[in-house]
């Protein structure tokens, strides 16, 4: 039978506030264990949480950017469960009456726009980290690092509107880009500042009701989300085809083996015993504050893309690629500022630049070629100093060495030969040494024109101005 996957995603994004959600401890990453802690975030008896206003502001930014409704009155709740990385024995989260609900994100899939609903965005605190030492002589030991405890998170829950792993990936990329455009999350999936769990079920194509779902955890990259969903679709399809039932359970993705395996079933699922946290007063949001935040929102991927198409006249595909991240969009616009030819710049970024970055698995922020330098390179082509072909070699060297284009061109003597007299002499030489081909060309084998161009280029080590070579060749032949 043909099945349709029904997918909903739960994203946990760490917010880039300076301090934690309920105390003044810094949120820095990578410090010595348990150095960024206090009585509040280690759950010392008698300590009490006080809400960090910045966390609310950042959450409201996310809510406004994703068209969510903002509740004028919302509550914090305790999610109770025992685990050593959870110092209070409960996580402060939101349950009934979250801060924001009912939003959406538009994604582009097969050049079609698709709208994915958001059920809610709520605030909560992160847990600590366990470090396991299995090598100790006294037997294995586990250690707890509370530095991450209390780092603010937003949980963003999508509606079950996603129908394929590709859509899931597109949704995640779009959501991540939005959070990064808003400067509220660094989007780093490896370090866990943008984490994703997935709920997936299958149903016969055309059916209206949902099948039994499984929850997938431990997918720490876009690729792994897609792989895990692909695997789970195959697994569930095989089970259903054999007439077996899907068991509602939580499954862990194993990236090395490329499989999901059962972590806990429905019976072992926690009863979190949510109830309103009596240590925190209800959160009341006044509409003026919302309007202030709305007014301060930066340009988001969607509107930036539309503006690029409108202002720079580039195709939708180019605009989509260039607005996948804010630094990339900025890079593009800085280049344009120095070299205002939108399509040429876009071509260079999308082909040469992104190819090199992808090869090295680098982000645009880590690009060794600053935007200004790329535009200088493009100017050299425009001025006729170098050919477009040479420029590609120059760019590769710029990327490797970090040197500027002019310096590289000078060092290699790659300046284009645009002296007509000099070129004429070279063309003469080429025609003389290839008399047979000249003969053939003149008899009508015009395809050989390219051959002559190639020979001239060879003779000049590619430095001849191609346009001038064309003109001179035509004249001489």
């Amino acid at each position: 039978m043909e099945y349709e996957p029904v997918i909903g995603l739960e994203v946990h994004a760490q917010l880039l506030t300076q301090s934690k959600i309920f105390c003044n401890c810094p949120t820095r990453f990578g410090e010595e264990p348990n150095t960024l802690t206090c009585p509040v975030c280690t759950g010392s008896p008698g300590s009490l949480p006080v809400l960090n206003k910045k966390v609310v502001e950042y959450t409201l930014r996310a809510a406004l950017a994703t068209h969510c409704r903002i509740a004028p009155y919302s509550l914090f709740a305790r999610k109770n469960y025992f685990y050593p990385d959870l110092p209070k024995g409960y996580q402060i989260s939101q349950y009934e009456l979250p801060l924001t609900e009912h939003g959406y994100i538009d994604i582009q899939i097969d050049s079609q726009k698709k709208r994915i609903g958001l059920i809610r965005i709520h605030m909560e605190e992160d847990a600590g980290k366990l470090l396991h030492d299995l090598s100790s002589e006294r037997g294995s030991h586990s250690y707890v690092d509370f530095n991450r405890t209390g780092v603010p998170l937003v949980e963003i829950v999508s509606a079950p509107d996603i129908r394929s792993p590709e859509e899931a990936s597109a949704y995640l990329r779009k959501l991540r880009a939005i959070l990064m455009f808003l400067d509220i999350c660094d989007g780093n999936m490896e370090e866990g500042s943008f984490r994703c769990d997935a709920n997936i079920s299958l149903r016969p194509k055309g059916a209206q009701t949902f099948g039994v779902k499984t929850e997938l955890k431990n997918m720490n990259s876009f690729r792994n989300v897609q792989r895990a969903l692909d695997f789970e679709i195959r697994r569930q399809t095989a089970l259903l085809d054999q007439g077996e039932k899907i068991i509602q359970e939580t499954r862990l993705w194993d990236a090395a083996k490329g499989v999901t395996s059962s972590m806990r079933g429905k019976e072992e699922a926690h009863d979190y015993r949510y109830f309103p946290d009596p240590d925190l007063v209800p959160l009341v949001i006044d509409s003026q504050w919302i309007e202030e935040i709305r007014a301060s929102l930066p340009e988001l991927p969607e509107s930036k893309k539309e503006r690029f198409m409108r202002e720079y006249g580039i195709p939708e595909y180019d605009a989509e690629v260039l607005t996948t991240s804010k630094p990339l969009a900025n890079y593009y616009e800085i280049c344009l500022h120095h070299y205002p030819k939108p399509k040429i710049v876009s071509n260079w970024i999308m082909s040469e630049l992104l190819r090199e970055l992808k090869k090295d698995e680098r982000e645009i922020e880590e690009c060794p070629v600053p935007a200004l330098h790329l535009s200088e390179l493009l100017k050299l082509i425009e001025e006729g100093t170098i050919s477009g072909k040479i420029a590609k070699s120059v760019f590769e060297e710029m990327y490797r060495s970090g040197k500027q284009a002019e310096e590289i061109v000078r060092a290699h003597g790659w300046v284009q030969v645009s002296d007509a007299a000099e070129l004429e002499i070279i063309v003469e030489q080429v025609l003389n040494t290839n008399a047979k081909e000249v003969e053939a060309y003149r008899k009508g084998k015009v395809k050989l024109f390219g051959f002559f161009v190639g020979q001239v280029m060879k003779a000049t080590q590619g430095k001849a101005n191609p346009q001038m070579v064309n003109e001179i060749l035509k004249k001489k032949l």
Partner: protein
Amino acid sequence: MELYQLTAYQLHEMLRRKEVTSREVTGSVLKRIAQVEDRVHAYITRTPDLAMEQAALADRRLQKGNAGPLTGIPLAIKDLICTRGVRTTCGSHILENFIPTYDATVIEKLKDAGAVLVGKANMDEFAMGSSTENSFFGPTRNPWDLERIPGGSSGGSAAAVAADECIASLGSDTGGSIRQPASCCGVVGIKPTYGRVSRYGLVAFASSLDQIGPFSKDVRDAALLLQAICGHDNRDSTAADVPCPDFTKALIDNIRGMVLGIPRECFREGLDPEVESAIREAIRTLEKLGAKTVEVSLPHSEYALAVYYLIAPAEASSNLARYDGVKYGFRAKGNFDLMEMYQETRSPGFGAEVKRRIMLGTYALSAGYYEAYYRKAAQVRTLVRQDFEKTFNQCDVLLMPTSPTPAFKLGEKVDDPLQMYLSDIFTIPCNLAGLPGLSLPCGFNKQGLPIGLQILADHFQEEKLLRAAYAYEQNSEYHLRKPAL
């Protein structure tokens, strides 16, 4: 007359006039502790060295002339208020060796005021109980009759004041844990309005009900201590940002025109006849002083006990989850996996009553029961609060017994939790509504056991409590009696 027998106010006058030093006062109190503590057992931890250091500091302040009313005054602190460097056990095995790394806000305030800490007072484990018999460190005895309980859960704080083992003390009140022991021990106790005093550093039992408050030998001292600890705190989101009035201004011997509400539900079967007659006598005294009385009704208060035993254990089950052996306190020794470590730590770490309430609370919050128990209780709590709102349209304060009986015998109710819970039947509604309440001595029964009069007022109306209590005290002598120890 020994120094330890005096009030904070009297001692302050003497300290100010340099007739005595804080070291002498503190020495006197420490001597008294040495004399009677083995019989009373009001303390879990005594801090004589710290006390003498703080007394010396206080004397320097007194010399310089920048002393306040509590400078140099020896106080006892209930052992669930965090004191930096001084162990804070909550009366529990699981925190037997827990030494806080920070001071509770009230402790910071008392230190700023120059007060002297003589020890951490005994209590029912995690403030769960009405007799102080649930302490891991053994019960406290009532100074008026050593065979009897001092009330609870702040039994140590109350007994220490009654036995002159401190000049005044702090306790906490979740369902009567200040007022009921104050009544049993014949001292004054105030449970302030919820939000009046910061809970930062108060180890939580039931966060929406807990409030720190003073015990003292008379109403003036209670006002002085309340003044010192109240106020907004940006470390406690539930601490109300309301101004604190000068409470001593309410200490005027005049209640002419004040309207006293008498809830008819309070005088029913189960109320000890001697308690009833003492309360009625107190009401007559106040009427003679010019107050008017009006009968009022609190129809939902009969559900208060049930509501309380859903909400308080529910919050407690969550609040006490942090005692898991991972970070501090007791951890079972052995080679355990995680689940075993939790079980082996928490099973012996908590006493029977605490475990009973954790189970009650866990049940009330569980999926499938939440609506019927926790949510229903929260709704009825609103009705209880509304009852009070209505009555305070008719009167300034409410008068009623603090406890249905005087202090009962040790062991009398330990095997009958429900009977024990009924000790708090008159004190619990006030916590559910977040109101301020006060208990002060209003008589003795034939066996010489103290009886307490409870006064309740509307939110942030502690001045009315103090005014009624002070006027009564000025016209009675019960607060002056001392137990024969």
